């Protein structure tokens, strides 16, 4: 009896959690195929009999969608590549080497996660501006070229790799780079996939840096471009904005579907539950 109760209460909690996460997405998708009259209708309709798919065409044509999309792709790919080059060696060093000030340095890395972007915006802008990098891709890549959270998570994963494996590799005269990329990284595949996905979502959706570090349209990314959809139709265009959001969300959904297995594994391995 107790078992049935436990199972059913778990089921109810799962359903509630599912609805909490699912409803906002459903609402976005639903709004994206409504007319503005249906959007403003009260009480709101939970289904649409005649979906207006032309909203997607309007969203696509009202802004330079392909230009912003290209910028988003370039920035996201480059940030991911840059983080791979900076996060892996840092995590490996913190996990496998003992050196003076290691604890303090690791503490400093973790402390950076507590500083909000708004606080460091001014010095970052000034540095990039003096280096003539504002309105270039660099201005959107460099501030995100490493990740303290990534270093922390990968360090935890690297620490789980048996010491004997590394010692055996060293006996076989493998260099540190080889150990790092050929032993540690494949052994932490799940964590790397998760980090890559979180990093992808974070960079793809990033609004703050893309907004404050650009003053022209040259390298503006999709999240900033999509906000200007709110100006369509005299400023009352929630349905068009939502259509733009759906278009922006598609790559994330595809990436999630592709990496789903690895992510679940990573969270169960690393103890991030």
């Amino acid at each position, binding site marked *: 009896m107790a078992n049935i109760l436990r199972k059913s209460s778990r089921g109810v909690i799962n359903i509630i959690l599912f609805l909490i996460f699912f409803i906002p997405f459903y609402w976005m998708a639903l709004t994206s195929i409504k007319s503005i009259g249906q959007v403003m209708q*009260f009480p709101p309709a939970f289904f649409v009999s005649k979906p207006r798919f032309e909203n997607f065409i309007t969203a696509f044509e009202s802004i330079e969608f392909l230009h912003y999309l290209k910028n988003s792709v370039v920035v996201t790919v480059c940030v991911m590549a840059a983080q791979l080059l900076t996060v892996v060696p840092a995590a490996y060093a913190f996990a496998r080497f003992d050196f003076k000030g290691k604890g303090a340095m690791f503490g400093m890395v973790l402390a950076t996660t507590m500083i909000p972007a708004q606080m460091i915006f*001014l010095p970052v*802008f000034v540095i990039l501006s003096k280096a003539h990098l504002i309105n270039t*891709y*660099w201005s959107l890549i460099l501030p995100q070229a490493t990740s303290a959270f990534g270093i922390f998570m990968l360090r935890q994963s690297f620490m789980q790799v048996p010491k004997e494996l590394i010692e055996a590799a060293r006996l076989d005269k493998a260099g540190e780079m080889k150990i790092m990329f050929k032993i540690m990284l494949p052994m932490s595949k799940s964590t790397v996939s998760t980090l890559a996905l979180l990093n992808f979502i974070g960079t793809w959706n990033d609004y703050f840096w893309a907004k*404050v570090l650009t003053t022209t349209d040259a390298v503006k990314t999709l999240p900033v471009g999509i906000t200007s959809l709110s100006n369509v139709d005299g400023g009352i265009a929630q349905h068009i904005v939502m259509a733009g959001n759906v278009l922006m969300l598609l790559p994330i959904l595809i990436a999630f579907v592709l990496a789903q297995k690895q992510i679940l594994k990573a969270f169960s391995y690393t103890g991030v539950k």
Partner: protein
Amino acid sequence: MKHLAKRILCAVLACAMMFTATACGGDDSSSAQGGGETIELTFWYANSVDDYVQGAVERFNSTVGAEKGIHVTAENQGAYTDVDQKLQASYLAGTAPDMTVLEIASVGLFGDGGMLQSLDELAAGESDETFDLNDFHEGLLYNCYVNDTLYSVPFLRSTSLLYLNTTMLEEAGVDPASITTWDSFAEACEKVHRETGKYGVSYPINYWYTEAFMLTNGGFPISDDGKVCTVDNEVSRAVNSYWMDLMDKGRAHVYAYAEADKMTSDIINQDTAMWFSSTGGLTSYIEVAQENGFELQTAFIPRGTQQGTTTGGCNIAMVAGMDEERQAACWEFMKFMSSVDETVEACISTGYVATRKSALENEKMKQWNEQYPQYEVALNQLSVAKGRPNNPGYTEFQVEITNAIAEITVNRADEDATLAALERKGNELFNE
């Protein structure tokens, strides 16, 4: 793994090539054109006015600009707060634009901070009779000055305005022209509610409308010298009681500003007969009325003990630190953008008020006002408009007063305690 490494390497190389292409693009501030030097200027603006601003800049570049060797590039920075944020940062970095719009409450902050060029000499030495400071409406000039120094000229300016769905009002037996005072406004709300079951007014609580109602009741949240907070008094208590009474009797739909979307919904669904908004929304509201089949009129903010309205919008300012030649080029652009012809274009295109008095004599404006008398009401209201406080602490105070009045009106927090706390906070902010 080999394949993965190869792919990553390819991606990095491809990106590096793209950077090289992008990062190499130079940004010269002047360029040779047909033997003479063209002065390249950058102008920052904000909000959804791209069509008008880009069109106006194009007109300048092809006329005055082409004649005098000046080329302006206009760049939209997002909202007014984004302009403020980026202007501070770029000024520190030495990469600020030549000219920028500034939300009128920010002129004091940047003027006081030495980031803006004084326009006194340029304006005084102006022989061009198309530019005349006295031709701007007085209510709009207040925020152009900081400590008696001219730092900006009026650009896209607005006032708070009462919008009327006259189709609904007439259905309820209300003469729209009768809505002129607090009493007649309340009476109209009562009739609409009684006859149609709908709201008389949809009202998101916001500092701008609170200020407007305090103003029409003989007060304002800050003293005239801009140093003392004046909210814990009978003027604000009367405004709060007025709205709570309308709300309790079901005549007003009152809610916190975070839910301001409700107003759009009320307007489109014709669940409200009246609402307050900026003149800057006039063009959009006329479109909404046409699409949804109702007649739209505008009116002054209802009078309590006196007539009055609050102003908003932005001015154009010149950034400090340029040589005289660039200053003169910027001044040409600022004169052009604040000319009678341009202010008429801006008014028609966006709904912001025409800033020059002589715009009323402009043929295009006359025709437009005849076709859409709603614009003329907005313009006439300028005679009772009050400038925005220049105290740098007022920007933060706006959030405080919006929240406090919502607490009192919607959540029914203790009025005495909330107003006393708000006044204390205001005095702290104004004297920091």
